[in-house]
Structure formats: structure tokens, C-alpha cells
């Protein structure tokens, strides 16, 4: 199987701070890869490099057979096929839920208004928020907002979804509804790269788990291997702390 995403030897720094060091990663189509590791280990930056919200300093990223790091790529076209969902939802507060979901399909893909709305209502139904279509985001709970953010990304029919700690800002009782939605996406065969602190979820949903530490992919493997018999001492240490905290 050829990789849908392949990251080769990518490095990225902000000033003196080296955030990614010679990262290699390959993600097959319809696969789910979970990135785990402490905050600041480079998970978010790696995701942002994949849709060019950040530019890499060195290395190469190929998405769907296209090299995106050579500076000749149509950034907007690339982003059309990569959806990203952020920790803080980042819904547009001045628009209704429905308008949040229809904006990009209408303006970027050029869908007719009626068509964009019909598609958005379909998506809202799928995430169980059909009745919130005309509400503004500040009237929704965090979990509901995050589900809308996922629907907004899905509305562009992306071939790859990047989820950047999508449950980290949520109250504990709201985490499940969002994870349920992501689980459903995985079942439909969506290719996903998920940065997460939800270890049980990663273990259940991932085809591959990568442990990042200080900008390096320190260890990667099947969830079974990473969570039950990690090879690297740093992975073991990280997981031991998670277990101590009662999170696994």
C-alpha cells in the first residue's frame, strides 16, 4: 500500500526552539494514526505543517502523491482536501451554526447556496445537531461546538482529517460525544491523524500510534505494542505517568 501522507526528515523551529527534529511518518489511506506525547512535544506543529499552516524548515511532505513542501503547491487547493479541527473549536462566532458549515463549500467549492445548505443540514443531522442549525456558537456547549467544527471540516469532503487535541478543552462529561463522532468517522474509512491525550481512545481507534518526545517520533507501532510493550524508556516513562494519573 502506498502512503497517503508521507513525511520525510522534517524539521521545524520557531526561533531557537527546535519543535520538530527529522520527523518521518507515513499514513496509509483509510488509516488512523494517533500522535501521543506531552504538550510541547510537537504534535500540533506536525499537524499544522501537513496543511501548510506552518512551513517546514527542512524535509519533504507528500500528500496524495503531491509534494507540498517545495513552495509550488496551491495552498488553498491543498487545504480543500485536508480538514483540520482545533482544540479551541474556532467556530466563527458571528455566524449561525449552519453558516459556519456552509461558508467554505459555498465560497471555496462554489456550491449553490441551496445545495450547500442541504448538505450542511445533512451533516448536522449526522452529528445530531440538526435543531441547532440557526443558533449562534455561543449558545452551544463545548462538545456541541466541537462537533460543529468537525462538521464544518467534513463539509469540504476532505480526504484527510487532522484532529488537534479536539477534546482537550472540553469538560469531562462532554468528551464522549466528540470521541463517538470521531470513532464513527474512523469506521467510514476516513484517513485521520489525531493528536490526543485520550490514551484509551487512541488504543481503540488507531491503526498506528506514534509517541513524540521533544520534536522526535521516539517510537511508533501498533496500539497494542505501544501500550503494552513499549521499547523506548521514554515511552515507558510517559505511559507510566499517564497510568499514575489514572488516564489509561
Amino acid at each position, binding site marked *: 500500500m502506498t502512503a497517503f501522507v508521507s513525511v520525510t526528515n522534517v524539521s521545524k523551529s520557531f526561533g531557537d526552539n527546535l519543535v520538530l527534529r527529522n520527523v518521518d511518518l507515513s499514513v496509509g489511506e483509510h488509516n488512523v494514526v494517533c500522535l501521543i506525547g506531552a504538550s510541547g512535544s510537537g504534535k500540533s506543529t506536525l499537524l499544522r505543517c501537513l496543511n501548510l499552516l506552518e512551513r517546514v524548515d527542512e524535509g519533504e511532505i507528500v500528500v496524495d502523491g503531491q509534494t507540498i513542501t517545495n513552495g509550488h503547491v496551491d495552498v488553498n487547493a491543498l487545504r480543500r482536501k485536508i*480538514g483540520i479541527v482545533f482544540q479551541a473549536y*474556532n467556530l466563527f462566532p458571528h455566524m449561525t451554526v449552519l453558516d459556519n458549515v456552509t461558508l467554505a463549500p459555498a465560497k471555496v467549492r462554489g456550491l449553490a447556496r441551496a445545495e450547500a445548505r442541504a448538505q450542511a443540514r445533512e451533516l448536522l443531522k449526522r452529528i445530531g445537531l440538526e435543531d441547532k442549525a440557526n443558533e449562534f456558537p455561543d449558545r452551544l456547549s463545548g462538545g456541541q461546538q466541537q462537533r460543529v467544527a468537525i462538521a464544518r471540516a467534513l463539509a469540504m469532503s476532505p480526504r484527510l482529517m487532522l484532529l488537534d487535541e479536539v477534546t482537550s478543552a472540553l469538560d469531562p462529561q462532554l468528551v464522549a460525544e466528540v470521541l463517538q463522532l470521531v470513532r464513527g468517522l474512523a469506521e467510514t474509512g476516513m484517513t485521520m491523524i489525531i493528536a490526543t491525550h485520550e490514551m484509551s481512545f487512541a488504543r481503540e481507534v488507531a491503526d498506528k500510534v506514534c509517541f513524540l518526545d521533544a520534536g522526535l517520533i521516539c517510537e511508533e507501532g501498533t496500539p497494542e505494542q505501544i501500550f503494552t510493550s513499549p521499547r523506548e524508556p521514554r515511552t515507558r516513562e510517559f505511559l507510566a505517568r499517564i497510568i499514575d494519573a489514572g488516564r489509561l
Partner: protein
Amino acid sequence: MHQVLQKFFSPHSFRVALPDVWQGFQLNLKLMVTAEILVLILALAIAVVRGLPGREAAPFRVLAIIYTDVFRGTPLILVAFLVGFGLPGLNMHVISTQSNFTYGVIALTLVYTAYVTEVYRAGIESVHPSQRMAARSLGLSYWQAMRYVVIPQAVRRVIPPLLNDFVGLQKDTALVSVIGVAEGALQAQQYSQNNYNFTSYVVAAVFFILLTIPLARFTDHLILVRERRERAQAT
């Protein structure tokens, strides 16, 4: 005391001066509306230019900065002289053959666009970068992200300070009398000089006050609504 009432608040003078001053004041209203519309559009354009990213846009950013610095720093009365007497003095086609009203609008627009540009710019900068990032990550171009996500939020936030600047603009329409626009203050002055009575100025003042009070209350109302909403969100 009688003297004061007679010179400033004479009912007779009030009645006599009223029609002329009202006629002049209608010109203030026209100056105000025309300049405000132009200011709203031009200031937004310049604010956006000032925020353009990238090295290629640097010359435009610099021009925008020079413009705002120059016209925020120059007293309106000087700009009015320069435009109202300077441009006709050039003896050029079109530029030198406009009405005093037009020169008045130009002077007001030049100065107030500089103020309002700063107001818009503060609004645009107050929109969190994550909003732009979210828009761009959906495939929207820089301009689409500005048009649909950043500017609508920025404009909503700056409406109260914008209205404050417009109160200033309304009053400053009286200043373009110096280039011979027969607006309310100038009409009042003429009555006053002909009759040696200052009631006509009070008439003009009343018009200006009546115009600004509703706008000021409306601004207060908007600020209150927003504060309430923000408090509701914080809980």
C-alpha cells in the same frame, strides 16, 4: 442678567434667525452624511492595506502609515484651507473647479478617514489569529478570510468608537465655514453680525446638540448590550 438673556436667548431673534440657520444646517447634514459614507469605505480600505502581509505589500503599508500620520496630525482647519483655497488656486482642470461644498467634503473625509482607519485597524487586530487560521484551513483565500470572517467581526466590535468619531465629524462640519460653505454656523454668524445679537449661535448649537444626543445614546446602548453579552458568556 437681562443683558445676557437679551443677547443670547432673545425669543425674537430666535424666531427670526431660525429659518436661515436651519437652511444652513441642512448643509451640515449633507456634509456629514456624504463625508461619513466616504470615510466608512476609504478607512476600511486603508486599514486593510495597513494589515497586508508580506514583503511585496511593504510600500503600500508605508503609504497607509504616512497618510494616517499626516492627516491625524494636521488640524482640520488647515486641511480645509489647503483644500478649499489651495486646490482652486492650482487652476487645473476638474481639480480646481469644484464647489466649496465638495472641497468641504474632501477636507472632512481626508481628516476623518485617518482617524477611522485607526479604529478599524484596532478592530481587525482584535480578531484572534485563530479565526483567520480556521478560515484559511478551510481553503478560503486571504481575501475571503478577511471578507467573510475577520472584517465582519472587526466591524461589529468597533461600531461604538466609530460612532464616537462621527459625533466629532458632525460638529466639525461647522469648521468648513472657513472656506465659505454657507452651513449653519456661518449663517448664524451672519445674523449675529447684522443684528449684534448672539442668539443665532445658540440656535445653531441647539441643532448640533439635538443631532448628537440620539447618536450618543445609541452608542451607549450598543456598549451596554455588548457588556451584557460578554458577562453572560463569562459565566
